[in-house]
């Protein structure tokens, strides 16, 4: 084959045009009229403005918005559909998960948690490597929060409605004083859980594990000495619970376990059921009970071997 300038230039352009037709134009025809999905709704002006800030600050380089069938984490209840993205200009699927996928982040946390987290992510998530965004200022952080709270669209709205509803009740309970607050908190725990004592004995190793977990997950809000004065506290209302006032308030191991596992909707307390396995929850609960409440029901009878709780063993 003789490679003339014409053959090289026109030939390669013709090939390119053909391939653009196959891999760009045909898929466009195939996808540009995608119907809205069941969760689709249009964004509000504030959410759209927040999305611009999300783009300007390169959030997309660490956070995907693309839930796959193989995912387990945040948002994995709903696998992404093409109809979720039909107003996205540009689309922000992302290519890295340095941080979690945000497809369904809306309503996972209340607004005050989001603001504390933007001020410095390590205030609420001590191991995070996300940069602080305090430099954006309150107004823009507000817009960015509106966008994040809209991720998941109608599903996010449903979660936000629950957060806002419970937030009012949580504030009322907090403002009614510690006795009423603790009573309110305990009242939302299923009866069976309230009666369970921590089935495992207090051990040095267990407390050391609890200490490590407390530092990695809890310290940002509840503080290093458990008084609720962690670095996130100024942004959070109702403020993080002060464990040191809980003595003689009938806080069982089961109550601590349930609150850590399930979180408290409407407050900044998230659920940890995805991040902590059973033993870790018992351990960190007992760490709080021993060191901060100074009242642990662990170590009681019946006692099992380390790995098992043996009811009725003599």
């Amino acid at each position, binding site marked *: 084959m003789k490679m003339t300038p014409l053959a090289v230039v026109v030939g390669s352009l013709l090939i390119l045009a053909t391939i653009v037709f196959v*891999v760009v134009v045909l898929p466009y025809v195939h996808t540009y009229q995608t119907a809205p999905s069941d969760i689709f709704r249009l964004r509000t002006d504030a959410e759209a403005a927040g999305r611009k800030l999300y783009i300007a600050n390169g959030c997309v380089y660490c956070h995907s918005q693309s839930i796959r069938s193989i995912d387990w*984490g945040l948002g994995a209840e709903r696998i992404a559909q093409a109809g979720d993205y039909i107003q996205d200009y540009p*689309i922000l699927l992302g*290519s890295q998960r340095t941080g979690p996928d945000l497809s369904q982040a809306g309503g996972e946390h209340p607004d005050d948690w989001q603001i504390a987290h933007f001020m410095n992510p390590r205030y609420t998530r001590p191991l995070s490597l996300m940069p602080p965004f*305090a430099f954006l200022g309150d107004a823009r952080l507000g817009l960015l929060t509106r966008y994040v709270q809209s991720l998941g669209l109608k599903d996010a709205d449903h979660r936000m409605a629950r957060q806002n509803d419970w937030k009012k009740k949580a504030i009322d309970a907090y403002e009614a004083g510690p006795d009423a607050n603790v009573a309110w908190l305990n009242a939302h725990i299923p009866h069976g859980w309230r009666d369970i004592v921590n089935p495992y004995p207090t051990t040095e190793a267990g407390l050391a594990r609890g200490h490590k977990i407390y530092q990695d997950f809890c310290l940002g809000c509840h503080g290093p000495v458990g008084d609720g004065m962690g670095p996130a506290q100024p942004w959070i209302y109702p403020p993080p619970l002060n464990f040191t006032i809980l003595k003689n308030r009938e806080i069982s191991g089961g109550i601590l376990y349930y609150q850590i596992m399930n979180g408290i909707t409407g407050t900044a307390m998230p659920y940890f059921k995805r991040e902590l396995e059973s033993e870790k929850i018992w351990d960190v609960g007992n760490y709080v009970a021993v060191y901060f409440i100074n009242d642990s029901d662990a170590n009681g009878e019946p006692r099992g071997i380390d790995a098992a709780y043996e009811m009725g063993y003599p």
Partner: protein
Amino acid sequence: MEEKVPLQYATAKAFILTSGFWMMIATFYGLLGATELMAPDLTANMGPIVFGRVRPTHINLVLFGFVTPGLLGAAFYYIPRLLGAPLYSERLGVFTAAAWNLFLAALVITLALGMTQGREYAEMIWPIDVAVVVAFFLVFFNFIMTVRQRTESVLYVSVWYVLAACILTACTYALGNVIWRPDGGALTGMPDAILLWFYGHNVFGLLLTPLSAGVAYYVIPRATRNPLYSHTLSLLGFWSLIVVYTHIGTHHLLQVPVPTWLKVVAIVDSVAMVIPVMAFLINIWYTAKGKLGEIHADIGAKFVFTGTIMYFFVSIQGSFMALPDVQRVTHFNNWVVAHAHIGVLGFAGMIALGGLYYTIPKLTGRPLFSRFLADFQYWMVLIGMVGFTIVLTIAGLIQGNAWLNGETVYRVLPEIHVYYVTRAGLGLLIFSSAVLGFYNIVRSMWSGNGAIP
């Protein structure tokens, strides 16, 4: 001896200096980003260098500031040589290089200010997009006019690659950046993702790879004084590259709701990439057969030949990564970052450095200012790049397998921290190599007649 003409090879020199300078800035941004992943509060609340602005700056500067100008710098030397005619216009060439530097500076400033279109490899705002397209057209125009004035009737394979790279990139850049929509430079919804990755993958397929192949096809036969092994393989490699590489962008979207037939096309063609890759590599490696001593003796050829070995690894790895079962583990994590560094630093970057170190003595008529520094840089880049690949691949495997096992992203962070620290250390090595390299390039260009071997 060539007669001393004003402006002789001024364009080649300008692009080589551009490459050497922006390699420093680009690798500094890489080091900065790596440091931020390791110690996020070190640069707390410094908006213009927040990680999300640093990362696109690093990537765009590496692609368009370091690698592309380096490969073009060599081309502005070898194209006139291969055609037996001076460059059509050195003035136009120098103007293009100056404009190129201006858009790179604009890129750094706009991204620092948060002015971005938010699409990977297509971040630059519309005025810069236009400047990039015009620059590629100007480079193409200069080359095609040189072709018209040629005295050598046969076009050598390097010329095909350079002509195709410039004209095809001008087209795909304009298309991929949706240049007809200045406000956002994007389509809406899923078609945007399909177009973006068509374009994004073609930055490698239609720009870096053909320009690198052009340099390798020039430098390896020259340095070894062997004739090219096979004209037929050159033809096969050239045409199959353009046909196959352009089909595979959707392998970035295998886990996303795009049409299944398009995913099948992308997977099949990703595997078929073995054809253009091996056609090129067999041709180059057989050309060099028995002459590795000559390659070792020439620092430019040494960089280029190493680049071809990296091309083998990155391409075979890329074909495997397009398989859905592999991608279940590798997608979304540092494995991909490792892959990108083998490709852009190990393959195209190594060949760009090789091209410019091979070319500089020809431009100045003197040996390099320091062969030792160039060799030292070679080892720094090689160790840095291989080290990157190892630590980021390990980190990626930890992340990918942990996620498949149901771990949250947050839980895995402490496990990969040590790899982030190591990666930042290796980044310092690569940045230092860029500083040494720029010093060597500048001294080689302007060291008067007292050259040091």
